[in-house]
């Protein structure tokens, strides 16, 4: 099956600044693709190009069966967007805004009323529906922005930092709603600089940095791609011997063995879940009783740092 979105050398420049640099990326129908990167990485520019709000300088993208340059009206008919910054005038009420959005997206009167009520209830905004945007807090405005997409249920949803400014309980609610939206068949692009969010929701994650796509794969494969990214801390009931270290270094998955304390070892390795039983077996054979064992996988933070050489905070500081 052909991908639902194909970006081909998609490029956008603002003056001398290359915001998006020859981006090639395909998104399968029904998947959630996380676009991960700091502010200024080019995520929002990619989104605006796909939504035909801005035109690429070079390259193009095919959304559904339509080229964003040739059939922008048709492309917009497939998309729904929740912007990073809520896009609303302060004099309008949440209800007016969502009701009009539902109308313009072609929902029937009955369906519109039902969905607006349902979604406003779900994002806990029903009681605030008659308040003007001016009277809403930043988090409330953000919930109204996300509600647009949840009401619309488009074939392709683009959500730009959907849980920024939202508390942790609210974040989980929105994540659940976005997951439900996907279950109904919506393909989703999730632009975020929250690594945990990308990890929890995305089938694949693309890391954007300075307008370039550095890598794109499943979160698991990305984590596994860091050589020695998994860590095991082992505490023995006896001092570690040179023989034990030698045995552990014999595993091809083990990249490095460090003795932290006389009884403690730290192993840097790949595919931790496959190797642990064999390591335990080896230690048992060496008559080295294990007092405790703790495993940790790399996070997307580590993946980001691995590919950019920067933590996401450092990259934010150097962003646009």
């Amino acid at each position: 099956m052909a991908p639902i979105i194909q970006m081909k050398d998609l490029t956008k420049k603002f003056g001398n600044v290359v915001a998006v640099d020859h981006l090639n990326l395909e998104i399968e129908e029904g998947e959630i693709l996380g676009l991960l990167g700091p502010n200024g990485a080019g995520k929002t520019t990619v989104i605006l190009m796909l939504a035909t709000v801005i035109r690429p300088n070079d390259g193009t993208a095919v959304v559904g069966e339509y080229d964003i340059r040739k059939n922008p009206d048709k492309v917009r008919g497939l998309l729904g967007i929740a912007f990073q910054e809520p896009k609303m005038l302060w004099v309008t009420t949440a209800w007016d805004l969502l009701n009009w959005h539902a109308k313009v997206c072609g929902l029937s009167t009955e369906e519109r009323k039902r969905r607006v009520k349902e979604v406003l209830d779900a994002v806990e905004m029903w009681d605030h529906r008659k308040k003007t945007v001016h009277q809403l807090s930043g988090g409330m405005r953000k919930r109204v922005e996300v509600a647009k997409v949840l009401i619309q249920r488009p074939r392709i949803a683009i959500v730009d930092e959907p849980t920024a400014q939202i508390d942790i309980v609210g974040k989980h609610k929105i994540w659940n709603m976005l997951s439900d939206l996907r279950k109904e068949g919506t393909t989703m692009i999730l632009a975020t600089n929250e690594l945990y969010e990308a990890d929890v929701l995305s089938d694949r994650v693309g890391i954007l940095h300075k307008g370039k796509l550095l890598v794109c794969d499943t979160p698991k494969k990305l984590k596994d791609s860091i050589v020695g990214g998994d860590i095991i801390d082992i505490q023995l009931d006896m001092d570690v011997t040179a023989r034990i270290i030698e045995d552990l270094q014999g595993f091809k998955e083990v990249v490095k063995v460090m003795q932290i304390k006389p009884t403690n070892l730290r192993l840097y390795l790949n595919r931790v879940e496959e190797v642990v039983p064999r390591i335990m077996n080896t230690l048992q054979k060496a008559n080295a009783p294990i007092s405790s064992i703790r495993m940790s996988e790399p996070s997307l933070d580590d993946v980001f740092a691995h590919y950019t050489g920067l933590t996401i905070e450092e990259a934010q500081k150097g962003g646009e």
Partner: protein
Amino acid sequence: MESEAETNKLLLVIERDIRLFFQYKFLIIMRAIWFVSQIALFGLISSRMMSIPNYFQYYVSGLSVMTLYSAAIFIGFDIYEEAEHGVFEYLLSLPVSRKQLVLGRSIGGGLRSFIYVGPLIALSLFVINAISPLNFLVSLVALFLFSFGVSGMSITIAVIIKSSDRFDIFMGVLDALIVRLSTAMYPLAIVQQSNPFYGWIANFNPVTYAADLFRWGTGIESIITLSNPLLPFLGVVVFFGFFTLFGVVIYERMIEGGGWQ
């Protein structure tokens, strides 16, 4: 079926602009107070200074057209408000074509100003105590088209200038020129007497067309000597047509592709 859906979208764009305008309650009340003050104070007092017969009626009808003009201009300020709040990007991302968007906004901007100015026009008709039903209907259509044209012009200028401060200043200057070089406040003969060039410009001014047609429609034509109402009517149609079509082209060219940023 598809064309019905497309028409609905156009109507929704129009509906949005009308609803939005009436959210600005303070502005609406203040403008109404301004209008009444102009009639009750300036109109009454200045008419005593004028040698022109029935100048008070003349002024009130001209003021209605000026108010319609300034209300229709307001859509341009909305565009900046929307740009500031990012609503522009939202509108551009909707499943609405650019043509529907600009046409809807021109019509919405014109219609809402007409709805707003409607009661004021009724008030002015009451004050000047003059109406000729058939003529008035024709002049009403002309005022409709005039207000759509002014909205289209405001949108066109707003997207070309791309700066709210500059737009504000430019529209102030344009307002001064377009209103003062028209027959909104004084008859064409007097404009021509003061300077034939001014008179020539006033002859081709949409505000003149709208004001003359309104006076003709309300039966105050004795002092404007409008021999053929078809000419100003055509003038208004051309004005409306130009800025609606030109507006669509400019809007697409300036906005599509992120030209606004």
